[in-house]
């Protein structure tokens, strides 16, 4: 027992600082020489996943390892492909919202917005200002929730289990808010073509403000837990760096691109849904490593809090959905008194609305990057083609360049900071 105490005493933060225990500060290519000198050039091919908690879903990575160093990475996807895009072709436009929400299951408001906005573009339908603000409020709350889930699971991959409980605690508060406004915690189907489903209930604004008032201090708590954590810093700092030009060639968008120093955010660059009304900053990184990716997302949570606050302050009065009865359902109370409303309701529910032929591509800034929705309309009440340009799907191509040549523990950190959602990748 005394021997154990002696050994425990000999491990101190001081010794760790002098000499990193992991291979984090390994220069690219340094491992090759070291391995060859020791005569350890034997390669091992392993499957990481498909069923592995660190793969954030059903992602299979065919890796070649040389000792602890990852030499090649080959993502194999499609394990949760459910044919959502094909299913959308068999649904009326307003019914397909339910399907598209289930693609990227952590950012359902963004999926619904991209889809509804593409349909509105084809219909040339105006969305009332109040509906736009309500959409912004929900999308930004969803961005916070998505980043919190990323933070919890990402830190868990590196061993910081407390972060999971803390982040999911706050995420649950957001889900409670969603439940209050729409009746559902996930996949709320709150956004409709032409507006939103319902106005926010009394008391919602107060609850949101209460949440917003405590969120910044909670972010401080997360940072207090992680920013001086030696393991976290060694796993994230100077790992997974990809040059900016390569990221652009790979089509990477979102926090990954911003961490590399490119201030590209569609909310600022090509404002949609009244984002031009709000004052917010685009956080960018300087090094482009995993630590910058973490910092950028943490800063985005703070910016989102500010946007929701401004949207609540400036929430305009007026209708929450378009008055065009050919597109939006009439209010429930009119059905008892107005024959016309009853007919519109019947027509919409039974056969939906027709969309003039055309094609539209609408892109929004989701928590993971550019989420684009491409719709081909053939003049009928059902879309001829719905395609989602999912940021996780495109960003996954960067994983090879982030992880190859690093030690396997850093590679897991790269995967966590990439934040792939397999529901969005496979659709």
């Amino acid at each position, binding site marked *: 027992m005394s021997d154990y105490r002696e050994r425990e005493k000999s491990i101190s933060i001081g010794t760790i600082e002098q000499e990193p225990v992991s291979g984090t500060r390994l220069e690219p290519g340094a491992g090759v020489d070291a391995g060859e000198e020791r005569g350890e050039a034997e390669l091992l091919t392993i499957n990481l996943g498909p069923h592995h908690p660190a793969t954030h879903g059903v992602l299979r990575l065919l890796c070649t390892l040389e000792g602890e160093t990852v030499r090649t990475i080959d993502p194999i*996807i*499609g394990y949760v*492909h459910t*044919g959502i*895009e*094909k*299913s959308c*072709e*068999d649904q009326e436009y307003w019914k397909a919202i339910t399907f598209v929400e289930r693609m990227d299951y952590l950012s359902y408001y963004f999926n619904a917005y991209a889809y509804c906005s593409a349909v509105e*573009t*084809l219909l*040339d339908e105006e969305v009332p200002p109040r509906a736009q603000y309500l959409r912004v409020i929900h999308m930004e709350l969803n961005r916070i929730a998505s980043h919190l889930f990323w933070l919890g699971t990402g830190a868990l991959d590196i061993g910081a289990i407390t972060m999971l409980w803390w982040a999911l605690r706050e995420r649950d508060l957001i889900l409670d808010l969603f439940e209050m406004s729409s009746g559902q915690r996930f996949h709320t189907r709150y956004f409709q073509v032409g507006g939103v489903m319902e106005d926010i209930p009394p008391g919602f604004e107060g609850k949101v403000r209460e949440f917003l008032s405590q969120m910044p201090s909670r972010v401080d708590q997360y940072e207090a837990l992680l920013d001086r954590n030696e393991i976290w810093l060694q796993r994230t700092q100077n790992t997974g760096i990809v040059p900016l030009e*390569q990221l*652009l*060639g*790979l*089509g*990477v968008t979102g926090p990954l691109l911003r961490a590399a120093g*490119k201030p*590209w955010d569609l909310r600022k*660059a*090509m404002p949609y849904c009244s984002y031009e009304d709000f004052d917010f900053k685009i956080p960018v990184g300087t090094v482009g490593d995993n630590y910058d990716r973490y910092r950028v997302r943490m800063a985005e949570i703070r910016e989102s809090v500010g946007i929701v606050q401004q949207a609540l302050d400036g929430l305009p009065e007026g209708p929450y959905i378009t008055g065009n009865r050919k597109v939006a359902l009439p209010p429930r109370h009119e059905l008892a008194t107005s024959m016309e409303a009853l007919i519109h309701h019947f027509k919409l529910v039974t056969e939906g609305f027709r969309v003039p032929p*055309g*094609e*539209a*591509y609408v*892109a929004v800034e989701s928590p993971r990057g*550019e989420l*684009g929705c*491409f719709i*081909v309309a053939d003049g009928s009440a059902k879309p*001829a*083609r719905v*395609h989602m*340009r999912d940021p996780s*799907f*495109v960003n*996954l*191509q960067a994983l090879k360049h982030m992880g190859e040549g690093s030690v396997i523990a850093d590679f897991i950190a790269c995967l966590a900071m990439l934040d792939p959602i397999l529901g969005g990748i*496979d*659709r």
Partner: protein
Amino acid sequence: MDATGLELVAQRVRDAVADDAVVGTGYQRGQATLDVAPPRVHEVLRYLRDADEQPFGFLASLHGCDYLPSEPRLGVHYQLLSMERRDRLGVRTRVTVEEPHLPSVTDLFPTANFQEREAYDFFGVVFDGHPDPRRILMPEDYVGHPQRRDFPMGGEPVLFTFNEHKFPRWYE
């Protein structure tokens, strides 16, 4: 980009690449689309990326779609983006089901790798010169291209080991 700008781009592409490179233009709801002849896609995209006076350096997305019943049926869309000018341009090309061949643009835009594989998987558009021309989301031994409009919706038996002998070659 407005309708006039689209015509100017089309004319520049015709001058620089070939007269038959641009088949037509489409402008709808503020979205500009350039219709390009299938064999010229690679040259046109290279011109738009590097040589044009208003270059588009970023391929945001690539979609396949099926225009059944009109011919040629299969369409491939390239959504180009210029981050400097904050502008988008769609490039559209259409190939027949019998000859679904297009030049791959993965050498210009590495991002097209997964997306071209996706278009091949779901529509059967073959991208010549693709470094890894395999299916991506459907199983490797899958037969057919499920997003084509004439591919039936549903009705596909779920195969387990206990019932696979009941559906020999069910896909035919």
